[in-house]
């Protein structure tokens, strides 16, 4: 009988968890909760939770199979419930997906090196919540972080909207950018309100999120990041696009940011096999080069509100002048990195 998994709280216990995780060829990452199973004083299984994402599953070879995974999930789901999380996601290797499926985790997307599964019916709930936004026709999609929403984003959205019946403008929900999600959503809505065939909605956790694509926020382009991009693209193509009759995804050309360029390349690989076309739209530029959100943030960091305002539509300029905008400028001036994530397609 396998004993229950318990929270690992001390640094000594967490070091043991790190060693077990690393012994399995995985990299250890910070978590809200780490749980583990001890047998005769030795840690034989561990796993962690960061928000609604379960990860770091590592079970020593002799204890694989049987009840061990269930024990880890029991402990993690109880902690997640106590934290108010109704939906849980697991990012794992494709070969492990069936083990989680036996615990009622549903496979959302599988790439060549990673798979994403969900417990709690979050995707169905998300699609049902937005069912009223469904429009027939040959529709398109643009996904932006909009940190903040620039004239470059507007150019991409206007170009895309002219090519499709309805354009869905997805704003990344994940709140890890210097402009808060609510502000980014409001700017995108206000800046595109003159376009009658544009529908603005949030991505929830189903595109460019801590679950699908954490590297986006870490600006990584390594193999692990590519595996995440593949899962992100597959989830969009297999579940989100069909729900809204999306046949085309449009992205801005990416000359500067390696992460975004790599993401565009993965989209170009993955989408066509699901019958979705990727269209790359040249960037809007001024004398100084392509207009990007990172240029706006750099200007704000230099306290150049006027320079920043020249690169954005009036809706964004109004936010920059507001107290919310001043708070963002202060955070940037205090050293929050302007970063390169700019015009996500």
């Amino acid at each position, binding site marked *: 009988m396998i004993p229950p998994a318990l929270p690992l709280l001390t640094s000594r216990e967490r070091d043991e968890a790190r060693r077990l995780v690393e012994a399995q060829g995985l990299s250890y990452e910070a978590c809200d909760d780490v749980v583990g199973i001890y047998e005769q004083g030795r840690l034989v299984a561990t796993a962690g939770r960061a928000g609604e994402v379960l990860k770091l599953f590592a079970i020593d070879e002799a204890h694989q199979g049987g009840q061990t995974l269930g024990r880890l999930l029991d402990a993690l*789901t109880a902690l997640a419930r106590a934290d108010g999380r109704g939906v849980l996601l697991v990012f794992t290797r494709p070969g492990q997906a069936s083990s989680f499926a036996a*615990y009622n985790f549903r496979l959302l997307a599988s790439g060549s090196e990673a798979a994403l599964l969900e*417990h709690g019916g979050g995707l169905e709930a998300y699609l049902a919540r937005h069912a009223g936004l469904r429009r027939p026709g040959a529709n398109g999609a643009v996904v932006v972080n909009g940190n903040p929403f620039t004239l470059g984003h507007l150019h991409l959205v206007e170009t895309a909207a002219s090519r499709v019946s309805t354009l869905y403008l997805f704003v990344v929900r994940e709140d890890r950018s210097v402009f808060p999600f609510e502000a980014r959503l409001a700017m995108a809505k206000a800046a595109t309100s003159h376009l009658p065939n544009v529908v603005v909605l949030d991505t929830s956790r189903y595109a460019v999120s801590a679950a699908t694509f954490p590297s986006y926020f870490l600006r990584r382009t390594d193999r692990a990041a590519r595996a995440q991009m593949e899962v992100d693209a597959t989830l969009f193509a297999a579940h989100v696009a069909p729900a809204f009759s999306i046949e085309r995804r449009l992205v801005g050309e990416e000359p500067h940011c390696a992460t975004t360029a790599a993401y565009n390349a993965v989209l170009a690989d993955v989408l066509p096999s699901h019958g979705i076309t990727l269209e790359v739209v040249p960037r809007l530029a001024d004398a100084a080069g392509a207009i990007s959100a990172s240029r706006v943030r750099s200007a704000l960091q230099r306290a150049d509100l006027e320079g920043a305002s020249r690169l954005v539509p009036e809706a964004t300029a109004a936010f920059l002048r507001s107290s919310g905008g001043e708070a963002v400028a202060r955070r940037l001036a205090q050293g929050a990195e302007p970063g390169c994530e700019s015009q996500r397609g």
Partner: protein
Amino acid sequence: MAITRKASAGTMQSSDLVVEIEPSPTIEIEIESTVKKQFEHLIRRRIETVLARHGVTGARVRVSDRGALDYAIEARVETALRRATQ
């Protein structure tokens, strides 16, 4: 019996289930099960029976089942109910 707060009971072990109950104006039951295709209707009926027995007319019940038998379903739902009405 009125549901006053969120509560749960059960485990994710084989032949068991996790039941989560929270307040709701109507009865809503969501079932995830490894044997959903064959037994969803029977699991639902069993949950409805326990709720009716306790006079519950409003509750959101979410179940993640791994092939639990009837007595386990009854016991877990009843435990979650008691915790949700304390």
